[in-house]
């Protein structure tokens, strides 16, 4: 429900902004006065407020000044739930941090805290970071959200950036992206790898809309090249737990799947697949070298550019909270290098599909899309709206396993 409200507010905010801008083109930016809904005229070319492709400021938001007043280097911190060498999620987030540090040099001092357990420890860590002078803080695990909200209320002059959540606050942004599009592309590689009509396995973390829409995107990719293939899912109820991920993968492999994908933070599924030489679609990171003989490809994220832009905005005093949903057009999402198993024909198909989705995100969901129970969820010819994507809570036809209890 909260998610729905969020979408509603984002959409209204966007509508208001565009209405106020009077049909402006995509380059024109809303400025503070507009977000404040006053009737002053629009600013000129240079905006006083952060703007970025695929970023929508929250309605009624105001600029938060979170750079040190004395002009010294801005301190920014990242809090991770896993280790920085997890070979996936946390590792790519840390790559984003290193990118920011490298580009901005001595204008910023970045730090990170890894292996922080969800719960009271998160607020303790944030207290420490603020005490150390950090004024921009990134959170990268869904389970940190309550602690981030509480801390954002406690420290109104600190800018918080939260990945993959849904709550909004004047000093707390949400950022994520359309991995359902790149999972679709990786699904093509899996569908091409598996024999026609065979089973493909997926090791998935939680049955939440974010993951389900990615799964559906993946399955549509499989069906693009292998219409009779079916997909079997094991839900692990964890983002990162190599032992559980590996067990889930082994159970799928012993059930006879001919290709396997994982949407988890570790490469454990790849390790299980390697034993049997089964093609593997990874997630989050490029493992094409370590697993080349079984590697197909993966959906990947590039967190750095958005994080860099937000920190630059903070330094310039333009930081504002909002919702960032990156896609192929701004290269927030991408797919990893191909492994040896992927044929040229498949690569060509993926390339052309990539072009299609770059121009039209979510085009793979063009209707008719039928749910597992046979009901048509997206009508013939329609493309789901952002709101429909965000609330996708059904598995499409072709997936043979049920969702966990909803």
């Amino acid at each position, binding site marked *: 429900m909260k998610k729905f409200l969020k979408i509603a507010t984002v959409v209204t905010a966007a509508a208001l902004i565009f209405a106020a801008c009077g049909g402006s083109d995509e380059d024109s930016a809303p400025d503070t006065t507009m977000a404040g809904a006053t009737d002053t005229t629009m600013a000129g070319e240079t905006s006083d407020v952060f703007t970025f492709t695929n970023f929508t400021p929250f309605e009624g938001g105001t600029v938060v000044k979170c750079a040190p007043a004395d002009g010294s280097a801005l301190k920014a911190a990242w809090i991770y739930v896993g280790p920085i060498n997890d070979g996936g999620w946390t590792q790519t987030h840390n790559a984003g941090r290193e990118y920011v540090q490298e580009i901005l040099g001595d204008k910023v001092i970045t730090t990170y805290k890894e292996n922080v357990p969800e*719960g009271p420890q998160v607020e303790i860590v944030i207290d420490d970071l603020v005490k150390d002078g950090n004024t921009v803080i990134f959170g990268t695990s869904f389970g940190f959200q309550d602690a981030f909200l509480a801390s954002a209320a406690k420290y109104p002059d600190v800018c918080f950036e939260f990945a993959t959540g849904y709550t909004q606050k004047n000093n707390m942004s949400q950022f994520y992206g359309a991995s359902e599009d790149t999972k679709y592309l990786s699904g093509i590689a899996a569908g091409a790898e598996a024999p026609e009509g065979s089973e493909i396995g997926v090791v998935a973390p939680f049955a939440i809309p974010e993951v389900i829409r990615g799964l559906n995107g993946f399955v549509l990719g499989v069906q693009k090249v292998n219409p009779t293939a079916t997909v079997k899912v094991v839900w692990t109820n964890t983002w990162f737990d190599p032992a559980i991920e590996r067990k889930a993968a082994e159970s799928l492999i012993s059930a006879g799947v001919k290709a396997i994908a994982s949407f988890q933070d570790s490469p454990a599924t790849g390790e299980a697949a390697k034993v049997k030489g089964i093609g593997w679609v990874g997630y989050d990171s490029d493992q094409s070298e370590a697993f080349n003989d079984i590697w197909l490809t993966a959906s990947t994220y590039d967190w750095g550019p958005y994080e860099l832009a937000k920190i630059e905005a903070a330094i310039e005093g333009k930081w504002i909270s909002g919702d960032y949903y990156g896609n192929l057009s701004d290269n927030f999402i991408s797919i990893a290098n191909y492994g040896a198993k992927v044929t040229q024909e498949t690569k060509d198909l993926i390339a052309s599909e990539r072009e299609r989705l770059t121009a039209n995100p979510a085009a793979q969901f063009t209707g008719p899309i039928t749910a597992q129970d046979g009901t048509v969820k997206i009508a013939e010819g329609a493309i789901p709206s952002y709101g429909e994507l965000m609330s996708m809570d059904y598995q499409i036809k072709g997936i043979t396993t049920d969702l966990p209890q909803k």
Partner: protein
Amino acid sequence: MQSPLRLERRLTQPKWLNWGVPLLSLLGALILGGIVLLATGKNPFSVYARIIERGFASTDAFSRTLISATPFAFTGLAASVAFRMGLINIGGEGQLYLGAIGAAFAGIAFQDQPTAVIIATMIIFGMLFGGAWAAIVGILKAKFSTNEIITSLMLNYVAAIFLDYLIFNSNSYWRDPKSYGFPTGKRLVENAYWYDISIGPIAIPFGFVVAVFVAVIVWFLYSRTRFGYEVGVIASSPSAARYAGIRARWKIITVMALSGALAGLGGASDVGDFRHVLDAKGVQISGYGYTGIVVAALARLNPLSAIFVAVFIGGLSNAGYALQGPDFPSGLVGTLQGLILFTAVAGEILTRYRIKRQNTIADGAIV
């Protein structure tokens, strides 16, 4: 070749050992840690200063340390009461989950009651659930002589799966039906939040106060009552206990249930003091139950010491996060923490044994 040194059991334990050995152990840890830090190019003094500052020295740092210490205090007490009778209860982790489940149930079911009633029922249900879960281990051991190490450990996994089931895979009483997207538990009403008790600038979580109170009760129970005396007899000599007519089976079940109830109280505090929701994933990542075993060992199974050790480990853990960063890998933090805990446990041996020089003639003869 034989070592020139050997350990000999002390017949008497001089009083100074009780404070001297821990202090010397700590000093040893600091020296060893200092060598590691120097080898990795760090200044040991500034690192230690930061540990003290961020773990203990300022009032707000100390308040945060108490937050981290609270669950360790409960699981440490839970392990201590069982170990005192020679019952190796490794199941504090699962018993804490069950306590959280019980307390969350009470917190939701009695949410319209006054705060005092809600907190009281949360404590009772937390203890009942944790105690009942541990009693399974006690009954199995008392009736069938099963090994409690294995059964209590295995039940941790069962408890974890049960917890996942309640939140992720069922429409249970605990799950919030409105939690759209990510499955979460029902949040407690604010009226059910356990409050902090402030002593000057230091905020003490209510659960920590309860832990101190419980520690005193346990200390009294074990050192001043017939119950405690009998537990001691069973621990040191089961056959003597049998001759004396002590019913060991009942003691096993009672002590296991008591141990589980204390861990369960930790779960209640986790819900009431900190998370205000049954957080199936968060509580599992935290691993409070296993840390409790370390706490008990360092406290030499003394319930009052367990409180101090819990605060020490809580501060050490918070300081560890404060140290971490790009130029201070978490592995080095773990090494430092590990060294401190290792020397503390190793030093404990010296309170019970002393080092004696071997007879050099015998030594030469063997070679």
